[in-house]
């Protein structure tokens, strides 16, 4: 759902008031966090969606990487996962088998246990997982603790919404499609471990609301403003070409409209460049806010592990806008 509709609907839900609930609805974070005792906090999340690629095995991997990512973004380790499946009668069951195999392989790669699931008959296939993870309460990294002076590190390139749109109409190259698939199916496990090692201040993962949508949530929750440099933001191959061709998903426009008034763009940035930063991501990277002292070491660590991370901006004191894109 678009950010605007979602916030309208969620407005009417009662806000739970329990001191053990460390992270709930109010900061638009990635997962709920519940303190079990002084040593352990439980992290719970659920995420599922319609196929973003044709290959069912790859789709399963992507959906699982995406669901696990919410645990990683909070600084936790995934423990247990349950499949959520919607599937039509008209498709061969072998397709579902491949989807589930992809999901199971990713869950295993995350060191997590796939313990069951639930299926519903539906016209359009959908797949995802509910995941529970654990972390010491002191290790929880929310999106509400970015501090002025921190640098912003992004751990995956943007562009999956645009490239997936372009692949559907066969305008993106096969290489670009493959690269996007590889990016979406990559776990944020190593990035999460690295951010904990180097003292990250705050984190969120980049998914449906796009880089700027999730960055704005972080800025609002942390009561700071962010400066993001367009030219420093890594993009998947062919993303800019496809954006210039108008292959921009409606979600990017929704995301941008929802941020109206909260973001200032440098006047030289073209409409397509602004929209790329709002492109809805499937299983995107982590956006990590980290004190400058640890940023260099974090980046080296990530790059050595083959993660194409980049410093894309910095955290500033609260200002007129949540984000300034330069």
């Amino acid at each position, binding site marked *: 759902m678009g950010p605007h509709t979602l916030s309208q609907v969620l407005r009417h839900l009662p806000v739970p008031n329990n001191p053990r609930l460390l992270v709930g609805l109010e900061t638009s974070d990635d997962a709920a966090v519940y303190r079990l005792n002084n040593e352990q906090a439980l992290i719970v999340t659920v995420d599922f969606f319609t196929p973003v690629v044709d290959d069912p095995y790859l789709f399963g991997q992507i959906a699982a990487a995406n669901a696990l990512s919410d645990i990683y973004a909070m600084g936790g380790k995934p423990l247990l996962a349950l499949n959520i499946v919607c599937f039509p009668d008209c498709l061969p069951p072998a397709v579902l088998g491949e989807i589930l195999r992809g999901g199971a392989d990713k869950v295993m790669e995350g060191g997590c246990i796939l313990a069951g699931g639930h299926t519903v008959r539906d016209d359009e296939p959908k797949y995802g997982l509910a995941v529970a993870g654990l972390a010491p309460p002191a290790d929880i990294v929310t999106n509400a603790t970015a501090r002025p002076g921190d640098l912003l590190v992004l751990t995956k390139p943007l562009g999956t919404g645009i490239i997936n749109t372009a692949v559907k109409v066969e305008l993106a190259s096969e290489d670009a499609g493959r690269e996007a698939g590889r990016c979406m199916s990559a776990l944020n496990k190593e990035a999460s471990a690295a951010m904990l090692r180097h003292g990250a201040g705050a984190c969120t993962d980049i998914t449906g609301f796009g880089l700027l949508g999730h960055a704005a949530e972080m800025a609002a929750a942390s009561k700071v403003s962010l400066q993001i440099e367009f030219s420093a933001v890594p993009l998947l191959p062919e993303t800019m070409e496809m954006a210039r061709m108008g*292959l921009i998903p409606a979600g990017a426009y929704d995301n941008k409209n929802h941020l109206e008034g909260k973001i200032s763009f440098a006047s030289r940035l073209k409409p397509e460049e602004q929209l790329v930063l709002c492109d809805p991501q499937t299983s995107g990277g982590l956006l990590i806010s980290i004190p400058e002292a640890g940023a260099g070491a974090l980046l080296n660590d990530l790059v050595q592990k083959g993660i194409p991370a980049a410093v894309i901006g910095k955290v500033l004191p609260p200002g007129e806008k949540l984000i300034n894109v330069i």
Partner: protein
Amino acid sequence: MSHKIVDCRGLNCPQPVINTKKALEETGVHTVTTIVDNEVSRQNVSMFARNAGYSVSEEQKEGAYYLTITRRDGAGDPQTPGKEQPSVPRAAAGPAGGPVYFITTNSLGQGSPDLGQVLMKSLFVTLATMNPPPAALLFLNTGVFLSCNGSPVMEQLEQLHAGGTAVLSCGTCLEYYKLKDKLAVGSISNMFDINNWLYGPHKVITIA
């Protein structure tokens, strides 16, 4: 030179762009009017056409947008509108078409560092006169001292940058040498973008 109507009412992104593109590729078609009924399609079709070198005029009637797309003289091949500005040189300020310089030191060549700096200065003085100017200058390791305050080649670098040469400095390196606040020309970049330049269509010259 015919005029074609492409009715995309009821269609969602990206289909209106695809239908418009196909119509423009038909031989003999000079003008296409695409009719769309949603804001996203209006913006996407218009973005496609403008970036492909067509002019677009818009009219709104009866709850639909009528986008009239006309070939401008010398407009590019509609099959490759994006190729006018490949994603690699997206940081480039202008049409610089020369080679890419991959510069990983602030001193040119082995031997005396003093001589190395003199040689580096003379390289930049020469570079600033080249036609076409270099497409990009990629600074890494001690190379980033050249793009920061106190650079001995500041004047030439500013001149190149103003002339359309992309100037990228490695963020990790700026971080390492504590130069992040001192960057004077161009933008902070990353290995991903730098590598995109090296992989791109340009000839690459390494100054190590």
